[in-house]
């Protein structure tokens, strides 16, 4: 068990092991997202109040899930990097940040588009919209801080600290629904209570959420692999790899 984790911490082994996992995650992401989209957009019944406009939920909710999860994943990677000095963790954190920011933007944008038919406005200063916007700023801050340092090691450690500081914002997002009076509907998914949606609507959403997570893992692995090659370009094994590829 421990030897496996130690191996995973070394760029070379990570590169080898991730190569084996990668096709599965890409395949799962593709299948789940295609099935979920077709099911959700074409076959799920229309909402009795919102009509067909509710179908944006199949993009909005998975993106919002990922937006929050990626920040936590980034902070955990940062912690692993700070405590155990595992370089892979920092590479993964660096590669996750732009995807997280993109997902936050997608969640905000799809929410705005959804707001027009349901609320009659593009933007509402409601608790969850606002905290999503703050999350976007936090992502931008982490990315900007990493870019501002000239030394890569300082950039990594500074971004890790900021991600850890920023992760305290995640519970604030979670509880902001209780803190403010809100126009936003309560959370769609709940682990403890039964979903309020009928199963035909809910299943495609679950599939889309799983698909988005697989996509996130696959993309992060792929990007981390390229980052390994970039940072370890002078190492023997990378040169050997490049030599064989030619």
């Amino acid at each position, binding site marked *: 068990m421990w030897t496996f984790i130690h191996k995973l911490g070394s760029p070379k082994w990570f590169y080898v092991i991730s190569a084996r996992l990668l096709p599965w995650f890409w395949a799962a992401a593709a299948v789940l997202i295609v099935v979920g989209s077709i099911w959700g957009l074409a076959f799920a019944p229309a909402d009795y109040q919102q009509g067909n406009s509710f179908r944006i939920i199949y993009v909005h909710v998975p993106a919002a899930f990922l937006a929050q999860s990626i920040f936590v994943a980034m902070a955990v990677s940062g912690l692993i990097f*700070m405590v155990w000095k595992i370089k892979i963790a920092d590479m993964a954190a660096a590669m996750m940040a732009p995807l997280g920011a993109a997902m936050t933007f997608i969640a905000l944008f799809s929410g705005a588009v959804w707001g027009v038919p349901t609320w009659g406005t593009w933007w509402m200063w409601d608790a969850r919209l606002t905290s999503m916007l*703050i999350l976007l*700023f*936090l992502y*931008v*801050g982490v990315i*900007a*801080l990493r870019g*501002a*340092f000239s*030394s890569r*090691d*300082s950039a990594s*450690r*500074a971004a890790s*600290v*900021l991600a*850890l*500081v*920023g992760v*305290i*914002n995640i519970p*604030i997002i979670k509880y902001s629904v209780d*803190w*403010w009076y809100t126009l936003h509907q309560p959370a769609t998914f709940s682990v403890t209570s039964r979903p309020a949606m009928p199963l035909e609507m809910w299943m495609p959403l679950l599939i889309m959420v799983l698909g988005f997570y697989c996509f996130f893992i696959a993309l992060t692995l792929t990007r981390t692999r390229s980052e390994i090659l970039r940072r370890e370009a002078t190492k023997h094994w990378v040169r050997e790899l490049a030599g064989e590829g030619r």
Partner: protein
Amino acid sequence: MPMSSTEATVSKAEPATSLHREPSGGLRVALQATFRRDLTLLLRRRGEVLNPLVFFALVITLFPIGISPDPELLSTIAPGLLWVAALLAALLSLDSLFRGDYDDGSLEQLLLSPQPLAALALAKVAVHWLLTGLPLALMAPVLGIMLSLPAGSYLVLSLSLALGSASLSLIGAIGAALTVGLARGGVLLSLLVLPLYIPVLIFGAGAVQAAILGDSITAHLAILGALLAVALMLAPWAIAASLRISING
């Protein structure tokens, strides 16, 4: 590298054992010394203490000019305006928190001292709050009069600002420590720090709003206190880690 030469001379001057065994009361003395030194330094540069206050007054002056001089309208938005302007004024003063010490090398001395850096950083932040947050809190009621803030909320305004600005100083110091090594960290600093200020702003402005509406303010002040407690507990470690990154980078 100037850094390594400093380290070398220190380890030559003092044997390694003296670094581990500190004299009794060492931390207290170090805290007092850091506190007094920062206080003296800041009091000798009065401009730096006065600038945030002038900025605060100026920003508040802009709003009636930009929006409307109507007292009724102003009184409804006054709590938020005062809090936002005070927050920005506090932010403005953050960049100089570690800048001087970084430039003249005394920050490295703090890092090398046998006392925990987190505690020494806390002393510096305390001075920053004493000469920025507290004056802003004391000045806010005067500006409140100018915005025709409803009576009965002036004390709450000062109280919430005094309590909240302590959290702002602590959180802001993390950002200041992260960006002190960068040549142009000013804009980046506000980008890092402002999102983290939002909870404090919500409950600070909320307390004043509640006082105007005649609601109980204890809940808001209690949460502001809780935020301060969490910041006091966690921020010094983050500041210390950030300072180490900035120095070694």
